[in-house]
């Protein structure tokens, strides 16, 4: 009981500390030099990796990736040629592959995994962080947008899709000639840009900056 009272009496308990998200070990939260990397001293999880103008780069990469996503959905993706016959297909056709009959929910899921979620994540990140580039306060609902983007990270599977395309191409290589359309290259570039952006994003630094710039 007494210990409860003591912690209740200290509303800013834990200020100036940061805990490892994986093993819960406490660390002192001091300002880090740009370019430094701070890891958890027990489990080695990367805690902070501040970079110069990281916000600007993240927002620009997110914007680039979302434009590429629009191109990837609307331009022809792959063309198959065999014995005088040819067939063009788009990313949308791949999504609609399961749309016949009972498998329709799987079409919806595939569309979400390879197009909707990656795109929505990029938009959420760009929305929450763009004002920060100009040194402004974060927009309304920036925190829920960032939390959602983080929660959806494992479900955005654009990079797995493009690897799946590579496997599928090897499978049909013996039977037919396949040419890659502009959407294929747009999608591949989008995956590279997204990976680059995710590597630049230091979650803890972003949250600290959002908190510091929040109007009180």
């Amino acid at each position, binding site marked *: 009981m007494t210990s*409860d009272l003591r*912690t209740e009496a*200290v509303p800013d*308990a*834990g*200020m100036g*500390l*940061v*805990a490892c*998200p*994986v*093993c*819960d*070990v*406490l*660390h*002192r*939260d*001091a300002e880090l030099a740009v370019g430094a990397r*701070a890891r958890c*001293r*027990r*489990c*080695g999880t990367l*805690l902070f990796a501040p970079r110069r103008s990281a916000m600007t780069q993240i927002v620009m990469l997110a914007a680039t990736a979302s434009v590429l996503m629009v191109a990837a959905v609307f331009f022809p993706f792959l063309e198959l040629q*065999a014995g005088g*016959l040819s*067939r063009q*297909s788009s990313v949308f056709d*791949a999504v609609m*592959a*399961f749309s*016949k009959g*009972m*498998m329709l*929910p*799987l079409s919806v*899921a*595939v569309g979400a995994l390879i197009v909707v979620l990656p795109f929505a994540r990029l938009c959420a990140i760009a929305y929450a962080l763009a004002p920060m580039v100009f040194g402004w306060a974060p927009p309304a609902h920036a*925190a829920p947008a960032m*939390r959602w983007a*983080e929660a959806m990270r*494992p479900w955005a599977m654009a990079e*797995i*899709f493009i*690897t*799946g*395309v590579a*496997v*599928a191409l*090897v499978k*049909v290589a*013996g*039977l*037919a000639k396949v040419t890659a359309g502009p959407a294929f290259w747009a999608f591949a570039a989008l995956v590279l840009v997204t990976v680059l952006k995710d590597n630049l994003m230091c*979650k*803890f630094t972003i*949250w*600290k900056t959002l*908190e510091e710039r929040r109007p009180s």
Partner: protein
Amino acid sequence: MQVHDMENAGRTQTFLTARRAGLVACRGCGAVHAKGVGACRRCGGTLSSRDAGSLQRVWAWLFAGLIAYVPANLYPMLVTTTFGKTRESTIVGGVIELVEHGSWGVAAIVFAASVVIPIGKFITIAYLALSTRIPVTIRGHGRQRLYEIVEFIGRWSMIDVFVVAILSALVQLNFVVTVNPGIAAVSFALSVAFTMLSAQNVDPRLLWDAYEADDT
């Protein structure tokens, strides 16, 4: 924050966790709070010192994933129609076909993604969940590594569903050859999604708590 060297590695009791300090840490942003605080002041996420119900959800999703994996192997994944003749192939059947064609590399990728990884994941998640209850041989850093591998690699099993989607969209040459998805694609996708949810519910802080308890 200071980045300590690993001089104390191996002696877990020297590390002060947020829980032992009577504090609660946010896994999303690292901010540390007094015990009893419900929402994180920095990111607004829900706080919990240790997610008490997490193990139950881990087991529930794991069993759901296992059950969905059975029909995924029994029913056809791909239905190929060549000049009016229809052939259905299961996951393992597809791998055997690839081997017969001499595509050892792709056969190995498909076999790894759709057989080795799913089964390895079931075993690893069960092992990690058990390690929080009973002493196991793999130590703290090893368990941490297993957890990271399961989190990173689990989503890649979805590649098989995407390959089916791309093949079905691409190989549609009316009378010559058409490829359509089989019902196994649905249960395989469900199995991957359920197993991902199971892995996401593992609270890694429980793994380290259990390791500390073993070590004393």
